[in-house]
């Protein structure tokens, strides 16, 4: 095995094992940032030693043992430090109270609970949502700062700083490495789900940059969601979110055309939808429903996605059911965006005039003022009703509002089609 091969193998091992190692260490040292540093140190040791010694039989255990030794060193040193500080009469606060002897047993037990604790800590509300995303991808997804930076199209130092600050915030706020209980749990879980879905959406509908999809982010989010589904098996909304992501991901090949342009749901070649992912999505939705969670926001969105997934042709879509699901969703989490989607479903179920009626009540909505999908959808209704001149104005407006280059092309294309289809003024 060449050195390059070994490095690649180490990358792979790291990807597989890092979250478990960090989670196990965090429980001992009670500090996520420190746990990550220790795990990183172990990785550096592997990079130094494995090219010569060869890859050990159980690389995960090797990394864990190396990290443990470093943790024990740190604990000893900080205890020593503590004593010295005690001698000069100063008080040193330390979070590292657990005795070294407990280390081995603690590390092997309840690794799954540790992982769950790590998820909750990385997605703690004390952190900004950007920080939660970066930290979650770093600690749970095993991504390097460089990979995260590339995925979000920001400079690497920005992400590195974001992660450093996030770790410091967690330490300063003395966020305990614990599983939230009672009434706190639901709010904390929803913060976790939000982070995962944010990552997924950033990959699925890239809000910036030249590409419509960044598949790596979708995969990272899916992987995180699947991990969470096995850690928190009794939480219906976790399965709802996984169902939603699996079904949306099933369309990723079909929603980009040969020139990288977006293809909207109803125009997609459904034979290109990934049936394996659809099956997994429907199974996850069933799991959510069996747990009595079919009315949660993610499960409702998954149920809507499932309506599309079950229809072999666009005409087979159960639009009336989709309208009802959007109504339920709007009651749960009232939002103009949901109303906009409901307008689309209404138009499909009962004709564009019905959709237009609803969408016109949203025109004055301040939060939608610069949202490109409002004029885009309104333009579509007007187009279908034959009001081409008005439709053209709406498509052009939508094109001027979107930040995505591919989407802008699509909208300008539709505006152009409206212009061409209009009867030209007669010349005398």
């Amino acid at each position, binding site marked *: 095995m060449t050195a390059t091969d070994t490095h*690649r*193998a180490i*990358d*792979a*091992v790291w*990807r*597989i094992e890092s979250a478990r190692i960090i989670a196990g260490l965090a429980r001992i040292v009670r500090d996520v940032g420190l746990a990550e540093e220790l795990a990183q140190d172990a990785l550096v040791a592997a990079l130094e030693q494995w090219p010569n010694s060869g890859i050990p*039989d159980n690389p995960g255990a090797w990394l864990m043992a190396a990290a443990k030794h470093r943790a024990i060193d740190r604990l000893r040193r900080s205890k020593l430090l503590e004593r010295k500080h005690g001698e000069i009469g100063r008080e040193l606060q330390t979070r590292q109270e657990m005795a070294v002897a407990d280390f081995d047993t603690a590390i092997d037990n309840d690794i*799954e609970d540790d992982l769950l604790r790590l998820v909750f800590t990385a997605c703690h509300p004390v952190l900004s949502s950007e920080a939660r995303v970066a930290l979650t991808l770093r600690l749970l997804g095993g991504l390097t700062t460089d990979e995260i930076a590339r995925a979000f199209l920001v400079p690497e130092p920005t992400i590195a700083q974001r992660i450093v600050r996030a770790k410091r915030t967690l330490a300063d706020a003395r966020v305990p490495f614990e599983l939230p209980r009672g009434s706190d749990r639901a709010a904390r879980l929803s913060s976790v789900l939000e982070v995962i879905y944010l990552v997924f959406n950033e990959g699925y509908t890239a809000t910036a940059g030249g590409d419509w*999809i960044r*598949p*790596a982010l979708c*995969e990272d989010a*899916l*992987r*995180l*969601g*699947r*991990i969470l589904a*096995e*850690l928190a098996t009794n939480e219906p909304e976790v399965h709802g979110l996984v169902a939603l992501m699996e079904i949306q991901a099933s369309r*990723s*090949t079909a929603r*980009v*055309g*040969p*020139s*990288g*342009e977006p293809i909207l749901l109803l125009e997609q070649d459904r034979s290109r939808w990934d049936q*394996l*992912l659809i099956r*997994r999505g429907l199974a996850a939705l069933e799991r959510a429903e069996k747990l009595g969670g079919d009315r949660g926001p993610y499960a409702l969105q998954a149920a809507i996605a499932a309506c599309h997934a079950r229809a072999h042709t666009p005409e087979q879509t159960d639009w009336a059911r989709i309208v009802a699901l959007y109504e339920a969703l709007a009651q749960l989490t009232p939002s103009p965006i949901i109303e906009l989607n409901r307008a689309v479903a209404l138009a499909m179920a009962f004709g564009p005039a019905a959709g237009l009626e609803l969408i016109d009540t949203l025109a004055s909505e301040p939060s939608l003022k610069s949202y490109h999908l409002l004029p885009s959808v309104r333009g579509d209704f007007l187009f279908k009703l034959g009001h081409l001149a008005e439709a053209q104005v709406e498509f052009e407006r939508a094109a001027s509002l979107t930040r995505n280059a591919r989407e802008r092309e699509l909208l300008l294309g539709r505006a152009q089609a409206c212009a061409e289809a209009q009867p030209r003024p007669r010349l005398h």
Partner: protein
Amino acid sequence: MMLVKHAQDQGQPPKELMEAIAKLSEEAVKSGTLVGSGGLSPMATSTRVRLSHGQVAALDGPFSEAKEVVGGFAIFDLKSKQEAVEGALRFMELHRKHWPGWEGETEVRQIFGPEDFPPHK
């Protein structure tokens, strides 16, 4: 995708191996990487539908000439080929440990995704 190939008629795998494989799969499910998998029934029950010399014909097994058969498959969502190879190494290691004398291979093949069809710019 991983395809496990081995000689025909190797008999039933030992219980320890099946348990170890179950544990490995469980870990892969928990790490969010195992998307689907299956073991395949013996060649004796299979049928080959073949196009040859312009003729399509269905031929029932067993097929005595087959030296190696696909015994099972698994589909993973992974970041890199190396990660897949690492998984295959662990899988084969279990065979070495629990089924002395068994020989075979795990073939790691990538399933194309949307990123493998870059837009024609």
